[in-house]
């Protein structure tokens, strides 16, 4: 899917696919049932469809994006990417409408009451905001840069999972968590040239701009959950492949310095 996306968005789609396939984070989470996996896959389909020109592409993209959001909310920044890819307001409105419908439709096995569905959204917000505390945006930013290792417990208190009739408690542990934003470590430091270049690419509507919404989102997510990074891997693979194709010579020099630092 990334290779297919790459044909539309990058100069070197095969390299993008290879980077993603070789991503250790993906190897690890391939065997772990997490909602992120479905959310990222569906969001990739949504972006692929959003790049099409016809109205039916916008409709299908909205459905895929709605299902992605119904898997996990953390994929929400991709909505910005999809809207960014729409050239007409009408298509953007259709996309948003089908996305909302598809999201709501996932509740059909449980209820048809809009009131109950809305109440569930509020419950989820309440639940998540009461659990995800403790680390600031600055911590997240520094962790993303790869020079700050968060030690758990990141929370001051154990997590109460509020499950069924009983309360599961996730006990704090002292084990360090290695943080890998760009999970093909030790290429972590490539982020330094990548983000400024993504900003520059925004002007020309280049592929690197695709990275922006998710990268910005990740700056504000808790840095200690490695699976949050799964959402960044496909756009990062695309962007990195594009970057390597375009700036081979310059990046070779930067990589040398990075490897030196990584070895330190």
């Amino acid at each position, binding site marked *: 899917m990334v290779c297919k996306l790459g044909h539309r968005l990058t100069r070197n789609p095969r390299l993008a696919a290879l980077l993603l396939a070789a991503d*250790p984070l993906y190897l690890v989470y391939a065997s772990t049932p997490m909602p992120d996996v479905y959310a990222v896959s569906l969001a990739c389909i949504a972006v692929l469809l959003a790049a099409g020109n016809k109205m039916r592409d916008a409709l299908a993209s909205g459905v895929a994006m709605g*299902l992605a959001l119904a898997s996990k909310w953390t994929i929400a920044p991709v909505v910005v990417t999809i809207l960014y890819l729409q050239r007409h307001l009408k298509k953007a409105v259709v996309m948003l409408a089908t996305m909302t419908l598809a999201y709501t439709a996932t509740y059909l096995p449980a209820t048809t009451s809009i009131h109950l569905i809305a109440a569930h959204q509020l419950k989820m917000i309440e639940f998540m905001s009461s659990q995800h505390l403790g680390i600031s945006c600055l911590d997240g930013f520094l962790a993303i840069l790869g020079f*700050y290792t968060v030690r758990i417990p990141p929370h001051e208190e154990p997590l109460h999972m509020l499950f069924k009739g009983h309360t599961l408690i996730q006990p704090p542990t002292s084990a360090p968590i290695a943080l*890998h934003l760009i999970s093909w470590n030790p290429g972590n430091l490539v982020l*330094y040239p990548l983000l400024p270049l993504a900003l520059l690419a925004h002007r020309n509507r280049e592929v690197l701009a695709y990275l922006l919404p998710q990268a910005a989102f990740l700056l504000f997510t808790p840095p200690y959950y*490695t699976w949050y990074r799964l959402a960044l891997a496909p756009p990062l693979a695309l962007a990195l492949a594009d970057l390597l194709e375009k700036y081979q010579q310059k990046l*070779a020099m930067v990589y040398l*310095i990075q490897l030196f630092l990584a070895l330190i």
Partner: protein
Amino acid sequence: MKAAKALALASITTSALAYLVASIAAENLASASLISFSEYMKLRYALLPALAILTMLAAWFAADVLKPSIPYQPLAPLLLCLYLLALREKLLRIEKCSDAYIYIEAGVAYISGTSPLELNWEHPPLAKYIIGLASLISRSYWAYAAQGQL
């Protein structure tokens, strides 16, 4: 041009060395208990990232000025070795998420008829439906455990 190249080389070397010295100093001061843990963390929070950013900017600047004719290909074996090292570390050290078991349990319950509105409000239900269905089809250990059959 010569002056620009010299400046680029000087900035890159100075930044990299400053980074090296600061890292070693922070580690040694902490291990010798000359600075507290919180001071060590402040160093890691502020000084080292700042120096690292400086080094990266210097490297980018140097690459721009020097316009090196470094072919990318010879780096490949080195990158591959580092990748394999990182992969090993990752596969051994990444902590698998305990939340996964909760999603299996919730997913199996959803498939069995429990409403997502009543149980596990962590995320919207679609992925948990898929996980629950897959767990039941594959007759996984955790699906049986969730149904209380173990």
